[in-house]
């Protein structure tokens, strides 16, 4: 029976024993106009583990993710209450440089959204506005390094001048990850990054997430339970705007404590 033990069955790797808290959220409430989309969400996101957000459509995963780099500022009707900190610093405090914040907390979206520019310029865009490269050679190095870390260098190195939009969906998504990495962020938020990709492109992104783990704090929203189980070490289950359960991925997928979590992940929801 010992081999049935929950731990190693599910997650590729177990949650790190010693963790550094990268971001904390306390009692976050979000309203779109009069409608409350998130209720009292509190969570710690660590540097070492990949954190997955799962839950049925409309439960508030994207809303919460957008709170973490103040993307909701761009939604006119959205109002965010509570406290979110990055390395102990309140990201909603007055005088916070939001552009700088979004460089530190990057985001990758569901639909690959490269700029209608060359592959090179897609990656160079962020470093350019943040003045991260002094010379052309510096910029070349950043572009190459980012594309390499995104696992795209071999496919892109001979077509850097071509438009990013001319790549396949999977390549575009890795380009978007390269673009996020290029500004040397601390946290990468991914909102269903594989939902438009085929299984091979998906596997490449998952492998990439595994390689990036530890170097960046990573949060991923996914509707694919197996994906959450494969890539994350921590999982949070959201339901109707509340965070129902948060724990080690290996426990959530073998022995969740909340009936609502169990019903959702075993396909008994609704």
């Amino acid at each position, binding site marked *: *029976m010992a081999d049935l033990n929950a731990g190693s069955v599910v997650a590729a790797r177990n949650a790190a024993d010693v963790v550094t808290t990268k971001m904390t959220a306390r009692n976050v409430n979000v309203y779109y106009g009069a409608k409350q989309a998130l209720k009292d969400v509190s969570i710690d996101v660590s540097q070492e583990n990949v954190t997955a957000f799962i839950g049925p459509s409309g439960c508030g995963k994207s809303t919460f993710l957008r709170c973490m780099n103040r993307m909701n500022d761009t939604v006119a009707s959205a109002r965010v209450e509570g406290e979110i900190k990055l390395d102990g610093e309140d990201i909603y405090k007055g005088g916070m440089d939001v552009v700088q914040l979004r460089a530190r907390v990057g985001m990758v979206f569901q639909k690959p959204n490269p700029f209608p520019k060359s592959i090179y310029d897609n990656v160079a865009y962020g470093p350019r506005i943040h003045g991260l490269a002094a010379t052309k050679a510096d910029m070349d190095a950043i572009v190459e390094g980012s594309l390499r870390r995104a696992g795209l260098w071999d496919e892109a190195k001979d077509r850097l001048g071509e438009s990013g939009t001319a790549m396949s969906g999977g390549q575009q998504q890795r380009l978007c990850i390269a673009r996020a990495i290029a500004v040397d962020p601390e946290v990468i938020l991914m909102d269903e990054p594989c939902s438009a990709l085929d299984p091979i492109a998906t596997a490449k992104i998952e492998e990439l997430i595994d390689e990036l783990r530890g170097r960046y704090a990573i949060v991923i929203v996914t509707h694919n339970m197996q994906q959450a189980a494969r890539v994350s070490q921590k999982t949070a289950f959201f339901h109707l705007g509340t965070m129902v359960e948060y724990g080690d991925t290996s426990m959530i997928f073998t022995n969740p404590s909340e009936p609502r979590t*169990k*019903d959702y992940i*075993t396909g008994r929801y609704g």
Partner: protein
Amino acid sequence: MADQTSHTVKSYDDDIHQLRSLISQMGGLCEAQIIDAIDALTRRDAEAALKVVATDARIDALEGEAEKLAIQIIALRAPMATDLREIVACLKISSVLERIGDYAKNIAKRASALAQAAPIEPMVIVPEMARVVAVMVKDVLDAFVDRDPELALAVCQRDQTVDNFYSSLFRSLLTFMMENPHHITPSTHLLFIAKNLERIGDHATNVAEMVHYSATGHLISERPRGDDTAFATSAAA
């Protein structure tokens, strides 16, 4: 646990239900095989014993079916949490039940051999031991059907009784064999029968552990094992 809500995809429930009913059938057959084998032994009925031997093929066939279905569910449904635990438990339980069937078959083979030999006295303890073992198998299957971790735990605790039966039978058979070399052949058969029953008890305990894990997600913590017969010596030596 017993009243699980339904899956959104109905055929998933059907699959699990079918798998569970295969296990129940296997369990029912195992229990009957133990009882029939011991019955053949006490009635010295070689023909009935051979029927038990032949029936074992049905348990083997059910195991094959259960394994196929479990693998299919894992491949097609990617089960999670309670479902995952349950299907893995079913897979393991089916192979344990198949082993239990083998032990019953072996008892029957020896029963048919013993039907030809002269009856020996320590025989009387065997049916009693078999009854306890058969009830363990029955109860653990009830615990499986009802997803009842308490009953599973109770079955585990009964394993000690079986071990005690075995130890005492072992000692009396040793004495018996030393008294008269003519007793050695029937005593040896009987000893193996008792050992088979003792193994069945252990396996019922394994099933109980799986039922408990499947129902609760927790392992029953290590229990002490009581079989110390390897070190026992004959009192009459």
